[in-house]
Every structure is written in structure tokens, then in C-alpha cells.
């Protein structure tokens, strides 16, 4: 049901979602003096000093410090939580959380529905994709080709890196064909690499590993990670600190809680971009949950976004916002859901399909005795082993990036809490000074490597809707069908063989063990693994070069509706081996340019 147009105003652009994509568009369009309305389902709590502090306090109190632990779930705009991941029995969906998971395997990532979106709990990694990532089909016969190339996207990468405020040195980042413009430099210098990074790199640089199924050995190469996190600025750049107090967060302080929350906002989040939008042109409406894209059946043009409000001052019924152009930038899964609920973009049948994530195969070990490597210091990861991001093997199995985890065994084993429980839970508990000594000895030697396997697009991995599953406002809950192809599974033992060679080489004791009772336990040729989700959710409304195989064109405009654009990782036809936010931000600057051209035509 269409609601009344509350303000009677027709905006130039109506955007759904106040995450990084919505924020970038609002900034670009507002600066060009276009009137913009953003509808955000979540609350605006994060925008005030007190509100952000309340998130911190919630995080400090939480016993399980998972990505969404600082951000309260609101039944009117519910969000997924990794704590709700459970084993899926055949035919019985797991629906204890917001997602309805039909399996056969659980989708293992989440997102935040609040102003600023999931950038509030992202790690901040800002890798560019490799040129070959854009041509997976023609190069390796896998996945899809993008309708744009690395070179075409490169200027927009630069805009995205400036907006996010990326810290990195160009010379560290030239590999796998990645190139930079002449004299280009990142806004800030690279974030210092951890002691563990240096420890591993000094022992392993150029160490050649044997890769199963591959004739020649592959040399390990280490590179610092470009990060949306403040460090020493290069000339002409001024770091953006805490959105409530710019004196705070001017540099990363090593609080080591980037995921789920940077206490000082030295890490980029979309609130920083939202603070910069021109308030004379951009209006942000919080607690406004879009329920339907209204479409004129004759012209196929979008005529409005119908939404409901909640909380204090909520309107009694649905409202409809009107604009000349509309952008859905609500996160891959939410955008797909809204398109499905509105019966929009139906030509290709691709809406909701090709749901992808990086499949994290974690391995963990203890450094040799007497070799504390300083776990739990600094940002979550500061160095990648990038040797496996591209290569001929991608014709057979997933490529992968391999960050070195700085936070001990926290992701694999919930350390250090689990270590404490281990020592005091024994029949002869370890206590007092002895406990302190043994905890220090173990925890300070913990290391993890994260093998982030590129998931390939599969039509059967998809988001659907089902009238049986709705939230408290009557909106659809995402129903997720998900599994892992052999292309991905084949890479799991490969990752394991590589990690075994690495640990052996440095004399670390391998403690990796995949418990078969884990809900995310999978096997390949009788070898078992568990995986974790990276939160790199892409593919659900992909771009392409024809209307029958994709939802948006290279301009990020939907094929089916002239005045409807989509923004967000859902536009990405393949995932690549990089964390997708930077690429998505670059695509969003490109989309903003295209929207401006259309408005000015």
C-alpha cells in the first residue's frame, strides 16, 4: 500500500540506506546542490558522542564480543547476528535469528542496521582488486567477467581512498598487475606492521611452498595492508577523527577492538562521510524502514519508496518518499530483499542470486617456546601474504588472500577467555602466579592465519522471501539458501597444506583442529574443516553487460527501471580476493557521477 507523501516534496534523489554507499552518494550529490533524502531503517544513535559511547559500554559488557555486540538489535529493523548460526537439518530451516537459513550450510556473516551501517564494525581493510579479478571468466573459465576493467575503475579507487582516508604506501601495493597513477600517494602513510608480521616475514619471505596440484612452487610474498585507519598524514591531508570530537582518533592508538568497535574512531566509518554532507541539501531520516519500491507498470519507472517509521514520533501509517532518481544502497541482502518484495528488476531473474562471501579457513599455532610474538596488539591484521590472490590455479579452485591475524586465537578459539577457562577448569586448577605465567606464556605465542577463499557465483546461493517469515513491522525476513561449491572446497586442503609448510618452517606447533560438531563444518574428500564468514557479502544484484544475465548495467543503473540505481557490494559480479568495501566505494563514486550526469541532462 502506498503511503502519503509526508512532506509533499520531490527530492532529486531518494536513497535507501545510510551506510558507506548511501553516505558517499549523499555527499557527492549534496555537494552538487542536489536535494537528497536518505531513508535509514536503523537508529541515529551512533551520531552523537553519548550514543557512540553507549555502544562502547554495551560492547565492554557483552560476554561474546561478536561483530554486532555493541549495536542493539531493534525488532523494527532487525539485524543478523553470528551468534544465531546453528546447524541446519535437512528440510528444517534455522530461523532462531533474523535470517531464515535453509542451508544446506549456514551463511556465516552479518551486518549492522544502524546509521553508518556495517562500517561501524568492519576491520577497515582497503585492498584494491587485481586486474584479473575483473576477468575471471575469460581468464580462468570461472565466475563472470565484469563490464568494467581495473583501469576504468582506477580513478574511482583514488576517490574512495581519499574519502575513507586510507593509510598505505604505494610501493607495497604493486603486485598481481595492480598499478597506480603517476605520482599517486595514499592520504596517509602505512600503518606500522606488527611484531608478528616482521617475525613471520623475516623467516618466510621468498620461502617457496609446494601447492597441491601445481607443478612449480609458489614463493611467499608479504605486503602491508592498506587500511581505513588514521596514521601519519601525507602532505595536504588532514586526518578525520571522532565524529563527536575531532581531537580524538587522529591516529590509531592500538586499542585492538577495531572489530566490533573503534573506541576513538581512528578507523573510518561512514559517519565521517555523513558528517561532511551539506545539511542544506541532504536530509537523513532515521527509523524509516523501506518496505516497497513503487513502480509505474506502464513506464517501468519508479514513482516512490514506501516506508514505515517506528519509535517516538512515528507516523501512524506508511509514508512514501518521492524523487526523480532512486538509489537502493541498503546492503546486498537487504537491497535484494527489497527488490524482491517490490517485484522489481525481474527480467534477468538474478535478483537475490549469486550470494557470496569470503570463506575463512582459519589455522592456528603456537610460536616456539620462549618466542612471544606479541599477540593481541594493534589492528586485527596489518600484513597479508598475497601470493595466492592470483594465479593459474584459479582455473581449478578459489584463490585466496591470507592476512596474518594479530589477535591470538580469538577468532578460532575465543582466546584469551577460553585459555583462562581451560586453566581454571581443570580438576587440578592452575591458579595465582602460576596461572598468570602460563596464560602469558600461551597467549603471547598464539598466531592465526586467515585463508580467505574466494567464493564463486552460484545461482543456487540466494536470498529469497517467504510470506511465512516476516519481522515485527511486517517486512520480509531474508530467507537464505546457501552452500559451498567444489571450486571453493577444493581450495580448503590446499590452504591447509600451505599452512602446514609455513608452521613447520618456523617451528611453530600447529594446533589447528576442526570440530565436526561446528555448524559450519564441511568436508572435501573426507577431510573436514570449519569456516567462518568474512562479512564480505556480494553478488545479489550483480552488474553485467546484458539485461538477461544481470540486474544493473556498467553505470550501476538497473536494466529494468530507468530511474533506479543500486549501490553496494551486491553489484559486484564476482568477489575477487580483496575485501570488497573499497571497490564498492569506488563503484559508488562512479554511480554518483552517472546520477549527476542524468540529473543535469
Amino acid at each position, binding site marked *: 500500500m502506498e503511503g502519503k507523501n509526508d512532506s509533499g516534496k520531490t527530492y532529486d534523489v531518494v536513497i535507501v540506506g545510510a551506510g558507506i554507499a548511501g553516505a558517499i552518494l549523499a555527499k557527492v550529490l549534496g555537494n552538487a546542490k542536489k536535494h537528497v533524502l536518505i531513508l535509514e531503517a536503523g537508529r541515529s544513535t551512533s551520531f552523537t558522542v553519548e550514543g557512540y*559511547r553507549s555502544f562502547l*559500554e554495551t560492547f565492554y559488557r557483552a560476554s561474546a564480543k561478536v561483530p554486532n555486540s555493541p549495536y542493539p538489535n531493534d525488532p523494527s529493523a532487525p539485524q543478523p547476528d553470528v551468534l544465531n548460526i546453528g546447524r541446519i537439518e535437512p528440510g528444517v530451516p534455522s530461523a532462531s535469528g533474523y535470517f531464515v537459513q535453509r542451508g544446506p550450510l549456514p551463511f556465516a556473516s552479518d551486518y549492522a542496521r544502524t546509521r553508518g551501517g556495517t562500517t561501524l564494525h568492519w576491520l577497515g581493510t582497503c585492498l584494491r582488486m587485481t586486474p584479473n579479478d575483473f576477468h575471471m571468466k575469460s581468464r580462468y573459465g570461472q565466475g563472470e567477467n565484469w563490464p568494467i576493467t581495473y583501469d576504468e575503475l582506477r580513478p574511482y579507487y583514488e576517490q574512495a581512498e581519499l574519502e575513507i582516508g586510507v593509510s598505505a604506501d604505494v610501493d607495497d601495493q604493486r603486485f598481481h598487475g595492480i598499478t597506480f597513477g603517476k605520482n599517486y600517494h595514499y592520504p596517509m602513510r602505512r600503518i606500522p606492521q606488527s611484531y608478528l608480521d616482521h617475525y613471520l616475514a623475516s623467516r618466510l619471505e621468498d620461502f617457496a611452498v609446494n601447492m597441491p596440484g601445481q607443478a612449480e612452487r609458489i614463493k611467499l610474498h608479504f605486503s602491508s595492508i592498506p587500511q581505513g585507519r588514521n596514521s*601519519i*598524514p601525507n602532505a595536504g591531508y588532514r*586526518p578525520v*577523527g571522532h565524529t563527536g*570530537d575531532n*581531537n*580524538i582518533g*587522529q*591516529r590509531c*592508538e*592500538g586499542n585492538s577492538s577495531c572489530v566490533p568497535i573503534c573506541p576513538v574512531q581512528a578507523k573510518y566509518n561512514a559517519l565521517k562521510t555523513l558528517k561532511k554532507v551539506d545539511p542544506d541539501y541532504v536530509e537523513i531520516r532515521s527509523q524509516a524502514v523501506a518496505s516497497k519500491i513503487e513502480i509505474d507498470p506502464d513506464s517501468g519507472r519508479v514513482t516512490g519508496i514506501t516506508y514505515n517509521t517506528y519509535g517516538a514520533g512515528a507516523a501512524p501509517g506508511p509514508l512514501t518518499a518521492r524523487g526523480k532518481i532512486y538509489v537502493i544502497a541498503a546492503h546486498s541482502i537487504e537491497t535484494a530483499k527489497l527488490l524482491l518484495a517490490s517485484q522489481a528488476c525481474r527480467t534477468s531473474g538474478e535478483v537475490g542470486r549469486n550470494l557470496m562471501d569470503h570463506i575463512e579457513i582459519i589455522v592456528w599455532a603456537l610460536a616456539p617456546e620462549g618466542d612471544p610474538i606479541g599477540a593481541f596488539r594493534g589492528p586485527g591484521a596489518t600484513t597479508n601474504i598475497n601470493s595466492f590472490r592470483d594465479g593459474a590455479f584459479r582455473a581449478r579452485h578459489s584463490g585466496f588472500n591470507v592476512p596474518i591475524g594479530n589477535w591470538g586465537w580469538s577468532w578460532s578459539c575465543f582466546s584469551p577467555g577460553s585459555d583462562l577457562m581451560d586453566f581454571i577448569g581443570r580438576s587440578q586448577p592452575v591458579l595465582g602466579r602460576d596461572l598468570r605465567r602460563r596464560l602469558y606464556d600461551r597467549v603471547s605465542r598464539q598466531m592465526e592465519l586467515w585463508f580467505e577463499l574466494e567464493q564463486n557465483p552460484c545461482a543456487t546461493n540466494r536470498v529469497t522471501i517467504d510470506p511465512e517469515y516476516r519481522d515485527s513491522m511486517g517486512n520480509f525476513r531474508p530467507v537464505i539458501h546457501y552452500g559451498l561449491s567444489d571450486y571453493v572446497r577444493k581450495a580448503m586442503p590446499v590452504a591447509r597444506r600451505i599452512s602446514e609448510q609455513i608452521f613447520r618452517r618456523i617451528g611453530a606447533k600447529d594446533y589447528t583442529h576442526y570440530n565436526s560438531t561446528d555448524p559450519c563444518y564441511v568436508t572435501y574428500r573426507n577431510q573436514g574443516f570449519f569456516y567462518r564468514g568474512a562479512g564480505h557479502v556480494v553478488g545479489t544484484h550483480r552488474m553485467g553487460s546484458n539485461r538477461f544475465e544481470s540486474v544493473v548495467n556498467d553505470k550501476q543503473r538497473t536494466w529494468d527501471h530507468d530511474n533506479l540505481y543500486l549501490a553496494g557490494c551486491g553489484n559486484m559480479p564476482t568477489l575477487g580476493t580483496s575485501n570488497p568495501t573499497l571497490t564498492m566505494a569506488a563503484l559508488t563514486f562512479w554511480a554518483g557521477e552517472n546520477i549527476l550526469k542524468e540529473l543535469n541532462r
Partner: protein
Amino acid sequence: MPAEPGKIPAPIRNIRELHAHLQTALEVEHSTIPPYLCALYSIKDGLNLEAAELIRSVVMEEMLHMILVANVLNAIDGKPNLTHAKFVPHYPAYLRHSNRAFVISLEKFSPTSVDTFLKIERPGKAGAPVERGEYATLGQFYQHIKKGLKDVCKANKYFNGKASKQITSEYYYGGGGDPIRVSNVDDACGALDVITDQGEGIRNSITDGDHQIFHQGKELAHYFRFKEIALGRYYTGKDTPKSGPTGTALPVDWNGVYNMRPNPKTGYYPQGTDLWVKSRQFCRAYRDLLARLEDGMNGQPERLIAAVAGMYDLKYKAVALMKTPCDDSGMTAGPSFEYVPPNE
């Protein structure tokens, strides 16, 4: 050097005297930091957030003042020294430049300590000449140095143009204002003006002038930030020194504080006891921090990065002392900021 009691300060006549005055300025700027840090550390975690933020912002600017003075000193071949035995005052102490009107102590956050902070940052009367005796305000002291700079460094004599010893915003951040690269008399006077403007405010105003110099948002001069705490109310943009603060209430919980015994000394505790060791460790940490700052101000700016980690370490050590009862009086130990020789 400060004027002798009873005499009008003699003009600065040569480069040696100018260096000495600037070294004194460095010590004066530093001397307020331990008392401010004591008050800041004494506030229990999560309480008095607004007041803590105001004090923190003042400390950051005092650090900036030290850097500005060091940049001036380095521009004319001086050598900032932060590690000599008398660099840190023995608290309770008079403010180095002052006319000895009041004493500053290492104290917890309280109405008394905030009152002292107000005295430290008290604005001078516009255009008041240096009086008989010592300088009544910091502003007068810096006026004297500026005059000396103009007299001694005619036609920018002595300015060496060495960029390597100038600390810039690459290495200093997190407070109102930026470091200024000093290469001539005008830069030097500008840098010293920032110090007095941030402390006392610009003439007949409550703001500190950063918005004029650095194009930043308006900030209150230190005196008025402490006034907000003392009166429990924020200033608004329209307020003046006369009107007082008319903004929203600033909640202050004087009980949300560790009850630190004023002016703690390591010697209060028997040698070798836990408190004695911790107190000494704190002093060593402070010594090391000053040494890093000194390196940073003498051509190794990257040492300032290590100083940031040193500041965290300092806080942990200070708070550990403040959580420990010093005797049966209900009071706790605290950081003493005493000199420790470099080899200990």
C-alpha cells in the same frame, strides 16, 4: 630568566639570554602538566567524562605549547632540554615565571585543584605593562620574549632555517591548533601568540583564537574551560567573560575520583615495599617519556611516536597508584613526578 623580585625585568640583550628565556618558557609550560595529569588520572574511568575531556584538551595544548617553544628555540640554534635534574618542579611549587601569588600542588580533581588551575590560566589585563617584581601573567612573560626576539634577531639574524628540527603536524596532533614551522621572527612571534591566546584567550573574549589562526571550530581558552568545570555550566557562542557561562549544565561528580593524598612522594613509603617500587617505576616512566620528547625536539621527531605509547603506560602506572591506599587515612598513593637519574 625570570625577573628578580623587586625589579622590572631587564631587556633580553643577546642570543644566550634569549635561549635561556625560551628554555624557561619550556619549563613553565611543562610545569602545569603534572598537576593537570594528576587531576585527570584521578577521575575514575567512565565518570566526569565532560570534565575529563576538558582537562585532557588543555593538557594536549600544553604539550603543543612545549612544541611551539621548542620550534622557536630550535629555529635559532637552541637545544631544548627536558631531562636535567630541575626540569620537573618539586611540588608543591610556585609557577616558575610568577609573582608567587599561589602554589601549585599535585592533587586529585577537586574544587581546590580546579581553583588553582584557574589561577594558572588567569587572563592578564589587556595591555598591562610588566609590573615591578615578576611577571603577573604568562602573557607578560611572552611579551618580554617577543621583544627580545625582535631586538636580538634583527633582520632574522640567528635563524638557521633547519626544517629537520621543526616538529610539524605529522607528529603532533590531537589538540586544538597545529605546530607552526618557525623560520623567522614573524613565525616565532606567531607561535608564541598561539600559546598566550590558547591559555588566556584573545582580548575580551572567551575563545582562544584557533579559529582565526587554524580555521578550526571555536574553542574556549583554557581559563574558560576550567571556569565551565568550576561553575558546572557550559559557555555558549554568545557568552562573554562578563556574562559567564549560560549554556547547558556540565555535570560534575566530585566524588567520582580517587582520593589521592596531595603531593605524593616516593619517600613516604619504606624502601622496597610494593608502593615504593610502583612509585619509583612511575617516576622512571615519566623520565623516559621526557627523554623521548627531548629526542623528538632535537631532530628525531619519530621518537614522538614512542612517546604516545609512553603516555598510556604513564596513565596505567598512575592509576595503579591511585587505587592503592597509602595508609589508614582513607587516602591513596599517587604519582610523584620526582626526578630519577638517567642511569637508574
